[in-house]
Every structure is written in structure tokens, then in C-alpha cells.
């Protein structure tokens, strides 16, 4: 597996690492058994993601996609953030090895899960807005 310079940059210097004490939307996806957990902390103000942090347990691509995803939605509206696709993350990273595409799916899901949590906290059913969140099936345990 060979990562692009962009991936290596985001792996080496991940943007927005950490936790947000005052987060009002938190999403965690992945499974330690699979070797990937992403946790995103959102601070949403007036429908805008004013701050974002992440913590990731996972491979280089998992860390880099988390970092890139946070960078791509920071300062964006919820609507814009919900449009973030895994392929946009892959593209922004100038590509990922085929075996690592699932990390970008995880990053997309982490964002959506955090937004869903934001709505849930507000007493709003997130499903009509965020859609159904399915378990990532990239990891097939034997």
C-alpha cells in the first residue's frame, strides 16, 4: 500500500485532533475488532459547524480521512456537511489504496453520526434529515 503525499501529510500532521469539551454533537463509528474507531466532536452554532475535533484509532488512512473530513466541513453549514461523501474525501486526499476506501466511508459516517447526535439531543428525529446509518461492513471478521 502506498499513500499519497496528501494522505501522509494528514497522517503526520492531523488537523483538529482532540476532544471538544463543549461539543453538542458527538459521533463514534467503527469497531475495535476491525481496527478502526473514529469519534467526532462537533460544536454547532446557528446551523454552522463552528468547531470540530476528532479522535481516531486506526491505520494511516483512518487518521488521514478523519483529519481531511474535519477540515472539509469545519465552518460549513449542516446541509453542506451532510453532502460530504466518502469519495470527496478520497479525492481531496488525492486517492487511497483500494483496501483503504472503507476508511473514507467511516469518516463520512462519523460526520453523519455526530450530526444525528446533535439532532437527537435537540429532541429531533435525525432519520429524515441524516438518513439511515448502517454499520460499516468493510471489516469481515472470520
Amino acid at each position: 500500500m502506498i499513500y499519497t503525499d496528501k494522505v501522509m501529510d494528514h497522517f503526520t500532521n492531523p488537523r483538529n485532533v482532540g476532544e471538544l469539551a463543549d461539543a453538542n454533537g458527538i459521533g463514534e463509528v467503527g469497531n475495535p475488532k476491525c481496527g478502526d474507531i473514529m469519534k467526532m466532536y462537533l460544536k454547532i452554532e446557528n446551523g454552522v459547524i463552528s468547531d470540530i475535533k476528532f479522535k481516531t484509532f486506526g491505520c494511516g488512512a483512518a487518521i488521514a480521512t478523519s483529519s481531511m473530513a474535519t477540515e472539509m466541513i469545519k465552518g460549513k453549514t449542516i446541509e453542506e456537511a451532510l453532502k460530504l461523501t466518502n469519495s470527496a474525501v478520497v479525492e481531496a486526499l488525492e486517492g487511497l489504496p483500494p483496501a483503504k476506501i472503507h476508511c473514507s466511508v467511516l469518516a463520512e459516517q462519523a460526520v453523519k453520526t455526530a450530526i444525528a447526535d446533535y439532532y437527537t439531543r435537540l429532541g429531533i428525529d435525525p432519520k429524515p434529515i441524516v438518513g439511515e446509518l448502517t454499520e460499516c461492513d468493510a471489516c469481515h471478521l472470520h
Partner: protein
Amino acid sequence: MKHFVYADNSATTPISDEVLTAMLPYLKEGYGNASSIYSKGREAKQALEAARQTAADCLGAQPGEIYFTSGGSEADNWAIKGAAAAGAKKGRRHIITTAFEHHAVLHTVQALEKQGFEVTYLPVGRNGIVDPEDVKKAIRDDTCLVSVMYANNEIGTIQPIAQIGAICRERHVWFHTDAVQAVGNVPIDVVKENIDMLSLSGHKIHAQKGIGVLYLRRGIVLENLIHGGAQERSRRAGTENVAAIVGLAKAMELACSSIEEKQKKLIPLRDKLITELCKIERSHLNGDPTRRLAGNVNISFEGVEGESLLLMLDMNGICASSGSACTSGSLDPSHVLLAIGLPHEVAHGSLRLSLDWCNSQEDVDYILEVLPQIIQRLRAMSPLWERIKKENIDYGI
């Protein structure tokens, strides 16, 4: 200057100067086909047969029992498929192996399972060592092969091969051992240890990649894996790679004559690493602490994922591995670590450092300087680590 530490010698080793020097004449003017009748061919043939003698001497074998192959994987495939085919002819379709063999063995027996063979995978326990009693119990009347590796490639544990060999000989079952990681690290005598078939690979002992040996005890006849010309006494076709073979023989000679010296050098380095790294909170040594290769360190760090650990080590000039090199790109944690009972989440966070002649006390010190910081950094951004600490998770290892 940036530090560079190659600590992945179980994945592959550089060709040593002596080996390359031995090879070069056959990469240059000594290009004759060893099957040709003219002097250039005869010279190649002589070099080939001298190499065979050297290889045999290193194993306590006879030159007529040495077959050169394209590496450890081919040797494993040939031994196992050949023994299975010979067994099937006598209605014996049961194979015994272990749960933590190299994929060259595991995937081969799995292919045989699809063809109707039955395979018993022996457990290896938390210390990564097969119990000879388990071999004894597993042997049936229809067992055609026992294949147990000499030393494990990930956790370095050394198996009781002589005992297993004695059991198999007594029960008249062919015994194969994948000794790819053992040659040059442990003294081997195929006769004393009752080994019927043994695989080894050049690139683990400073010879070229793409060359290996299958030792086949006199009297064991296997169907060819590669049919064709009359090379290797008609049992392995293909124009002989004389340069690589001469290099392999030189490498075996050097490796097998310096085992004690190597152990004397590496064991203190290994043990220093183990002692210091095990001081890191929630770290676990994998495999028996003493019955292991002199250069092998394999430790799991809870809450950390192996690939990012390796990448950060690489950025600091340290080459290491997590799981075996062959399966990088895979999402599955090492089958070896699962076999010794690690939970998936811990197996993911494992590191193998494999030391060799090239390594020094300075290397060890440098690793000990860099590695704990990396672990700390990764744990600081790991939601799994957060959870482990918060919930005080006990994996029971």
C-alpha cells in the same frame, strides 16, 4: 544525520557482501546453462553441485536430498501438496498442522481441504509453542503428513521439532517443517531430529529473494510441483538459477556457522527491548520469553493500531512490522496473534521488531527513545485508549 534502523530482518535481509561476491561471477561471465555439455555449462554445474553439498552439510543432509526451489513458499507448497497426493494414493487424506503456520503452509492446506482433505489445526497456546503430546493425539491411521514450523515468523517461538519428529517417525507419518525462520538461528540436524522434509528461504539469511531449498529425505518421492526439464534430478524443472544458488549456499554456510555468536550478540539486545517496552503501560509480550528467536521482539500495545505505529516508526527511520509483511494491506489482524489467544483489538496493536547482525546497542537505545513517544502520541488520539482507561477494560492477557 537521521537515524536509520532496520529492525525487520524476519521480513527480509540485505544480501551480504560475501554472498554478492560469490554470486557476481555467475551473474556475469559464468552464465552457462548448467545442463550444457561445454565447459561454460560444466563450470556452472560444478558450482551448482558444490552449493548443493554446502547446503546439505548445513542441515546434516546428503546432497542428493537437496532440491533448489524459487523460495520458501514453493518449497512449502511442493512438500505439502506432494505429501498429500502421495497420501491420497493410499487413502490417507488427513493432515496435521498448526493454527499459526505461515500462509504458504496454511493456504496450501486450505486448498487441500477444498479437495477433500481433512486438516487438524493444532492449538499453540498463549506462549506460542506446540505441545508434542497434541501431535501424538492428533495422528490417525489416515494421517499422511504433519507440518509444524520450526520457528514462528511473527512471534519467533521455537517449536520442539525433535520431539515431534520422533513421534512422527514412530508412527510412520511424514514430517515436514517450515524452517524458513529457523535456519541460521537454531542448529538443525535433519537426521537427529527425524525431519523428513524441510523448507528454507534464502532472503531471510542474506541471500537473494527467489531462492530456497526443499530438503527431501532419501526415499521420499513427491510428484513434481513443476514438471519439465531434467533439472534437480528431474524433480524440479527450470533452468537452474546458479548465481542465486551459489549465493544461498554461501549464506547458509555463513549463517549456520555463526549461530552461537549471533545469539550471544542478539539475545541481550532483544531482552533489553522486551524489558523496557514491557514497562509501557498495558503492553504485552507475545510468545514465550526465552524459547524464541534471538532477534525476535513482538509486543502488543493496547489502544494503538499497528499500521499507524509502523508509519510513525518509518518517519523516524525505523523499519518494523506488524503482523507479517506478506499480508499488509489486509484488514484482518494477524492469524498468529489470534491463534495465541489475543483479542482482535489487541492483536491490531502489535509490533514486531526483528534484529540481526546489522543491529547494535545504539539501535536499541534509539528505538527505546522513539517508540514510547509514538505510543503516547497515538494513544492520545485513540478513542479506544480513552475507553480502555475509562472502563478499565481487562482483556485477560
